[in-house]
Every structure is written in C-alpha cells, then in structure tokens.
C-alpha cells in the first residue's frame, strides 16, 4: 500500500478519491478536501461574476490538483473551447471532458467525447474523459490520447451506485489506462465496491454535497476508498461453493 500510487499521465497521487466541488458552499471546500484526503478536486468554468468577489481558487488548499471539467458543453467543439479557457485560467493541463446533449438524464455523448479527447490530447492537455461505459468507446479514447477513462456508475447526481458494474468491470479488465469511476456513486460502500473491482480511483460530488455532515461523509468516503483499494491489492479470498471434492470424471482419461 505504501508505494501504491495513482499515476495519471506521469503525475503521481497517493489519494484515490477525487472530490467534486459542486452544489455546496465554498467555505466547506477546505474541510471536505481535508477529510476526504483528496489530492484532486474538480471544478467548472462559468461566466465570471462581477458582484461576488469570492473565488473558488481562494478556498482550495495548496498542493491540490485542480481538474476543470467541460460541463455545459453539448458537443466536442464546445468542450474544446471550455478546456482552452480553463487552461488559460492558469491551473495546469488537466481537463475532465464532460459532454451532454441530453438535459433530462445528463448522459455523456461518447462519440463527441472521443472527438474532443483527440483534439485536446494533441494540444497537450491531460485528458480525463467522462463516458458511458462502452468498451469500443474506451478503446477509441485510448487511441485518441486519453490519460484515464472515467465511466459513470449510474446517472450523474443520482446516488444510485454501480448500476453499470459489469460494464465497468470490462473496462477495468481490458483497458490499460486508469479507470476512474465517476458519477452516481452515492455511498461509501459503493465506492469501496468499485475499488475492490480494481478501479484506479473514484470520484464523487453529489453524495457528499447532499450528505447531512459533509466533512464526516468525506472522511467516510476516504476510508471506504482506501479499504476497497487494500482489498483489491490483497486479492479477495475465495468463496466456498460446496464441500465435496469432485471425482475425476473429466480428467480420468489422462495416462501419466
């Protein structure tokens, strides 16, 4: 566990819990980061507000990596535009691509996401695309230059947990990049399960923002993610299926 690092495009992280910063007050961010043990925090890009002089950057502790997303983008071109603006804001090359062309379920558009990934990777961004867990898309994202793949567990903000579990497992098994489960994780136990499956990290926002005690829930998530990771690294134990040993009915033909 000590040398176990999450590596994204050559950048090393100890924490495997990525924190969202949406839907809660800026004043809670510092505590959330602290209790979550987070080293990466996401944020969005919006039209600047002239009235409010509070800026999220003033609330994020030093040393935490900022992961701007492209929320609001409805196609690849808009995502690229938002990503470029985010980089101009001067907090590094990380970008989480989020492209929705559906306002009801907010499901990501995989095809446009591949297109945006390709453009931004060529421009030197560290691209972390949020996607619907589809193996062919994941392979396209790898070829397009993605740094990670971020499949959704269930619709964003739903807190419904690992509805796409089997398909995320396929990505974990087949894709050589870190698979970061993003969206829909509503409880620490679900985060833990994703980590036990072999996910490289878990990202959560709404589960914390809507919790009774945000910092306490952030800590619960941190522990769950660590426990799941440790279980994965330890190799889960066997389940006893039956007591009796089988007879050699299948292999009885072997001669030596």
């Amino acid at each position: 566990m000590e040398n176990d690092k999450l590596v994204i495009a050559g950048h090393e992280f100890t924490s495997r819990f990525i924190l969202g910063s949406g839907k809660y007050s800026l004043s809670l961010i510092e505590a959330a980061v602290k209790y979550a043990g987070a080293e990466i925090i996401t944020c969005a890009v919006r039209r600047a507000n002239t009235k409010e002089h509070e800026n999220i950057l003033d609330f994020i502790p030093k040393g935490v990596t900022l992961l701007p997303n492209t929320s609001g983008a409805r196609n690849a071109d808009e995502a690229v535009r938002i990503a470029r603006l985010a980089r101009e804001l001067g907090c590094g090359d990380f970008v989480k691509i989020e492209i929705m062309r559906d306002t009801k379920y907010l499901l990501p558009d995989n095809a446009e996401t591949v297109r945006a990934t390709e453009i931004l990777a060529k421009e030197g961004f560290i691209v972390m695309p949020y996607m619907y867990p589809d193996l062919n898309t994941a392979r396209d994202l790898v070829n397009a230059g993605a740094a990670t793949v971020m499949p959704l567990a269930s619709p964003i903000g739903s807190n419904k947990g690992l509805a796409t579990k089997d398909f995320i497992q396929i990505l974990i098994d087949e894709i050589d990049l870190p698979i970061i489960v993003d969206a829909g994780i509503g409880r620490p136990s679900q985060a833990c399960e994703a980590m036990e499956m072999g996910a490289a990290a878990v990202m959560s926002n709404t589960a914390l923002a809507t919790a009774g005690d945000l910092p306490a829930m952030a800590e619960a998530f941190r522990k769950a993610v660590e426990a799941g990771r440790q279980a994965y690294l330890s190799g889960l134990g066997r389940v006893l299926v039956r007591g009796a040993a089988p007879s050699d009915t299948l292999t009885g033909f072997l001669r030596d």
Partner: protein
Amino acid sequence: MENQFLIDSDELTPEALERKHRLENDPSSRTNHMEYMEGQEVIKSDIREKVMSAVESYDPSVYKANDVMRALQKQNLSVEDLKALLSPAAEPFLEQMAERARIETRKHFGNTVYLFTPLYIANYCENYCVYCGFNCYNKIRRMKLDMEQIEHEMKVIADSGMEEILILTGESRAMSDVKYIGEACKLARKYFRMVGVEIYPVNVEDYRYLHECGVDYVTVFQETYDTEKYETLHLMGHKRVWPYRFDAQERALMGGMRGVAGSALLGLSDFRKDALASALHMYYLQRKYPHAEISLSCPRLRPIINNGKINPRDVGEKQLCQILCAYRIFLPFAGITVSSRESAQFRNGIVKIAATKISAGVSTGIGDHESKYTGKECDAEGDEQFEINDGRSFKQMYSDMSGEGLQPVLNDYLYV
C-alpha cells in the same frame, strides 16, 4: 546442448559435416539470434516487452493452493491468476480446472468441435533446427508439389468432406516463395471455405498478398520463448532470428489477416514459462487488435525421422491438460487446437474440456494424401516432419466426435 537431438547423416560431405559440428559446438560460429536479418521488417510494438517481462518475473514455485482457488473463482482472471493456474500448486486442482474450463468452452463454443486438415506442399528447409525432421541437415526425401499436384491433393481432401485447410511448407523462402504459396492458396479457395497457412514468417506486405490470395489465418510457432534456449536449438537460417518470429502474428494482423495462432513447442524449455508466454502473446495481441481471432495450440515434442529418441520430457498428459485448462479459463474466447501429435484417447478427452479444434486425416509428409486416404501406391512422396500419434481419417473422426456427444463443425465461416 541436449544430445537427444543431434544426429549425423552419413551422406553429408566432410565439409558439410564439419560446418554442422562447428555450429553445434561453437556458439561463436553462430549469428546473433536477436538481430534482424536483411529484409526482415521491424514493426513498432510493445507486445514482446509485455510478454517477456511477465515471463521473466514468473516463479512457478511461489504459488500456493489459495492462489489457485482464488483464481478459479474469478470471472476475469489476471495475469497473476494465470501464473497460479500454470504452477505446480494447481496440479491437485486439475479436476476443478477441467470443470471450470468445460463450462467456459461450452459457454463460448457450445457443444461443437471444429475439424480441419493440414496439407504440406513442400518440405524444403534452409534452417538447422535440431529437433525438426525437416532440418536442412536431416537426410530425408525432399519434395515440392507443383500446382497440378497440389490441386490433386486438394481434390482428394475435399472429396473426403473437409472444408477447412491449413497449408504448410518447410521454411525455405528460396524453394517455396510467397508467390508459390499464394498460388497454392488461390487453388485452396476453390476447394475449401477456410484457408490458413503455417509457413515461414514474412513481412506485412507479404501477409497482405497472401490475404488477397484467400488466406485468413496465420499460424506461427515460436518454439520456445526462452531466447537463450532458442539460440541453442535454431542454429542456422532465417528462423534463427527470434524477435522477427515473435512479431509474425502482429505483422499478419497488420496485413489484414482475420486470425492468428501460435504457441511454444512444449518440452524444449521450461514448459510453464513457455505456456505462460504463449497465452500472454495471444492475449496481448487480442488486446491490441480487439477484432483479431486468436487461437492457441499445444504441440509437444515428437520423434522425427532418423531420431526416435526425441520426447516431450517433463510435459506429461496431466501437465498438458493443466496448461490447456489454464489457457481456456484465462482466454475463454480463444480457439484451442490439439494436434495429431497426441493420442486419440487424449484428444477425445480434451475436446470435452478445453479444445475446440482438432485435425483429422493428417499427413505431415508431402504428396501422400492419396496413398494415405485410399491406399493407392504412389512413388513420389516427401518425408514427414514428425510422427503423428492420432491417424484417424476425417470420416472416422467425424463419427468418433459425434459418438462423444459433440457436434462436429466443418466450417462456420462467412467469407467477407
């Protein structure tokens, strides 16, 4: 050097004999087996590095019963799990492995077994591979069929009912060039619905050409993934270049082939490491080329003409069965072919567990299908590469497989 392999022919000139002995005894007289020869295409690939780093770190003795049990319960096995299943710790679990393997085989292939036959069209070889009957210093009857003879052989085979054929040559580009093989494959497409080749490794453009001639499947045996051992067994010729051989399947896929097959020849070196390497070679190919059909074989060493002492050493039937079950559980979707090197009893048993494809009506000689199929004498025949063990005809195999409760399939291929 294993003495079991080395045989001197009394027909070699003193000069040839001297050269042969020098190659055998003086490593400095041999070329660098890791260096490409002129004309051998280099491709950019990380597969070799991935496979070999896993093999180099593999210590079969560290795995325990618990590792095997855990592996057997996983839906998707990791490379570590495969290592456990190939280790001595898995031997007491052979029946459980067979049970799991059978479930996977039936899940992916149903109750079927595919039949095919190999056709050797030439046995000229310019390599000196000490364990092979075709090696250039072995005194055998050499032969290369012309197109008329090839067509005749194909007719005989096709008349037996076979629909899939594997065209083989010895590894001599000079005697059996790509054009010659391509022409044979064009003929094969007239008589068979699926054509594969097992020939010397070639460049991407050659594979593309062969694909245009109707070939869809390329089989290349790496013999052993132990490069040091390889060096001591493949003393001369193009085949001596180990990395060029390793990349053959990938070049075939780059040339448009639909599927590739490969394996080590079990018994040449540490069979557990070679089995691991064989499985990972195909595994990483499929990961990189997800559309590719992959297939594994499991040849063990067999006696050859002029040397009956050659044997598979420590790879017994139990070990072979363990390897095949591990392949199946790790790669549930892969084809697995069991060669006629194995006995009828072994093949009947293993098709119910892990194998999906077996050859029938096999001859590893040249131009002798008519005599072997009909008993009709024929004077011009080339000698065999190795002794087969299961000599069942296509008809016999078809009825035996049905008798075992399996559905023999001749072809399920839609040619596109």
